[in-house]
């Protein structure tokens, strides 16, 4: 399974701009409490699962389907 750092880098590619990436990162943070930019534990499986669910709900298929 991808680490938070790997998900972050793929999300940057999928969102294409830093403004868009920051907006999505903030949505994930407010929804789950998980900081994708500066995570407490890059390999925390619970945090990774929360990020993946949020990304799926927001329709970021590339980021979550290319583990």
């Amino acid at each position, binding site marked *: 399974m991808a680490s938070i750092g790997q998900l972050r880098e793929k999300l940057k590619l999928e*969102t294409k701009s830093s*403004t*868009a990436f920051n*907006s*999505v*990162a*903030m*949505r994930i*943070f*407010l*929804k*789950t*409490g998980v*900081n994708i*930019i*500066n995570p*407490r534990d890059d390999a925390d499986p*619970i945090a990774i699962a929360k990020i993946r669910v949020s990304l799926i*709900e*927001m*329709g*970021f298929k590339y980021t979550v389907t290319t583990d």
Partner: protein
Amino acid sequence: MATNFECRSIYSKAAEPTTCASEIVAGLRATEAAAVMFFASPAQDGSGIARALRDAFPDAPTIGCTTAGEFNEREMGDGGVSAVAIPRGIVRRAISAMGDFRDGCDEGVRQAIRSLSAQWNVTLRDLDPSKYVGFVLIEGMHGYDERVNELLGDEAPLLNFVGGTAGDDLKFQSTAVFRDSQSTNNGVALMLLELEVPFAVLKTCSYERLGKRLTITRVDKVARIVWEIDGRPAAEVYADALGITVDKLDPNEFATYPVALVMNDDPWIRCVQQVLDGGGLSFACRLLEGMEVEVMRSTDIIAATKIAVQNTVARLGGKTAGAVLFNCAWRKIELEKKKLDKEYLHIFEELPSAGFHTYGESWLGHMNCTLTGVVFGAKG
């Protein structure tokens, strides 16, 4: 009627409903409005205001809500109606929709989003977030604020929807949102603008971090109750962080020392509402198990707001056309208590704007004790 390039605002305190509606319409009429927003005291006839605006501006979508106080750039008060007309010169086109939550919040929001999409035959997630901006007004008594913001994010994660939760003068009995001739006590009103000008989202609160981090460990998510922090009764841990005993926790402490989710040094405030039997804390915003929050301390609301507004105006090149603002009702109480309301209004005197005191602010998520808003840049 000439197209112009500046928002026009009005605030009426007329108690008689027809007079108030006439004053609001008369105050906005000089503008060729592309969109109109109004914010009405629960003592006013919100539906009547909505009808009057629809009749006066049949081509301009109108949304509004009830408040815990209203303001424009010149006046602030209770019991009146504030409104802003956003002109054709800065808005290429505008649409609105209402979602009713009788069949559930999710269905109501999705219904409103489907309506917006159908009106322009677009998918919201494909819209350019630098050219389009959304507004969201959420009914305030059902606690759907977080879910509404999440659903907007799921459908259009890159689009900014900015707004607030309707109020009822701190009675906490009934609030309403309006869209053209529709109104509901359980739903959401959305507006979407395609802009001719740049815009910036304003978000500011006046708190500093105390360096005390707490981890939420047991909650009732739906009721916004935190039962345990760091594995101990929430009220006990919160009181410890403030250096006082639980019996000393009161609304003054809650207002002075809220907690916040902090990302990139940016706090997203969550206010404690009360201490519960059993040692829990009820909040005005949802917190989840595993979330880490920081204890905050109130600072200078005038200085912080002034800097935030100046920075936002600077991001737009120093020239603005107006704004729509959503100010937490707690901030209004603080301003009144400290007799700072005139000084606060002074910050916005160059910014034609209207807004209301909310039961929560929206942008990317739901938050407390914050001023959010959209500031429109000037044309050219």
